[in-house]
């Protein structure tokens, strides 16, 4: 094969078809989802498209498009979440990794919360767990949606934190969690402190000394102990399920 032939072949293949949403999209966004925690593993590309009529679609290279909403007006990516707002004044949070792996017929679920009428997403800041919305009058408002807060708290409680030095002064990672950050996030956003334990009770017991080291303030420890209870945190009803005056948690 001559060089010209080779370059000609390359030339004909420079626009590679990826996905066909089947309808014109106003905004298309592509994100790479790592298939595992191993950075060397190939990432899956997730394609998101929003049409001018409000249809919000997702697709991968190997799956047909999935319609996430018929009335979306904006979307963004925040960490592992695909966040979109609808004309029904709701913000939806769907796991991007689930969208990238599940086939089109599988229900991906997700969480939702009410937002002000006509809100549109401007951007999200995963590190501060915040979502910036533009209101119809043009003012910007920042909210801390519960799914984003919970994702950060879970990441902190599961974290491996760098340990400075051991006896032979060799740096190493220790499995000790970012409990202070998780605790302060729970306190700030009024999340039940049981989540720190209920995420993985066995792991928490193993890391109890780390928790006390990090949350060393006596008042904080007292607050934590008084908040602990026999509550199955994962079974708590969502805000939509709770009516006024209903109990906030299920007792075991």
């Amino acid at each position, binding site marked *: 094969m001559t060089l010209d032939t080779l*370059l000609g072949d390359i*030339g004909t*293949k*420079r626009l590679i078809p*990826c996905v066909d949403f089947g309808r*014109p*999209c106003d905004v*298309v966004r592509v994100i790479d989802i790592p298939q595992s925690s191993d950075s060397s593993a190939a990432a899956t590309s997730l*394609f998101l498209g929003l049409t001018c009529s409000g249809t919000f679609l997702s697709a991968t290279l190997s799956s047909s498009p999935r319609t996430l909403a018929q009335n979306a007006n904006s979307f963004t990516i925040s960490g592992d979440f695909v966040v979109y707002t609808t004309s029904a004044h709701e913000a939806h949070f769907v796991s991007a990794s689930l969208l990238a792996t599940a086939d089109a017929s599988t229900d991906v679920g997700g969480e939702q919360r009410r937002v002000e009428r006509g809100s549109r997403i401007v951007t999200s800041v995963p590190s501060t767990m915040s979502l910036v919305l533009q209101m119809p009058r043009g003012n910007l408002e920042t909210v801390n949606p519960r799914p984003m807060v919970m994702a950060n708290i879970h990441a902190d409680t599961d974290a491996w934190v760098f340990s400075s030095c051991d006896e032979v002064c060799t740096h190493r990672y220790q499995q000790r969690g970012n409990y202070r950050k998780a605790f302060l996030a729970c306190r700030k956003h009024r999340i039940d402190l049981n989540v720190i334990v209920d995420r993985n009770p066995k792991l928490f017991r193993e890391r109890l000394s780390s928790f006390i080291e990090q949350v060393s303030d006596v008042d904080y420890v007292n607050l934590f102990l008084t908040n602990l209870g026999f509550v199955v945190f994962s079974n708590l009803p969502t805000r939509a399920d709770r009516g006024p005056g209903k109990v906030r948690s299920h007792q075991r």
Partner: protein
Amino acid sequence: MTPDLIWSGPLEGARFREIAVSTNGSGGAIGRITALGFESNGIDVLQIFDIEQEKVNALEVPSLGSLGWRLALTCGAIVLHRNGKVLECTPVPVQARV
């Protein structure tokens, strides 16, 4: 600050309407500029520039041949879409053909 001319090429009256900049360039590039517009003959045109330490290199890209192309938001890759069809563009350095 006065703007610097980063490229002057043989396009005839092209008007660019979408520009994307990414900082994770490939090879020796520290960044990449992707510009999408249309020429005076009404055909869409794509231009890609790799930013290196001292110079800006134009990459060779395929002819789009029609109107209505849009740039997709990506993390570095060049992805275009039109009528719901999404295509990835793999540019070739101009010097590779010399």
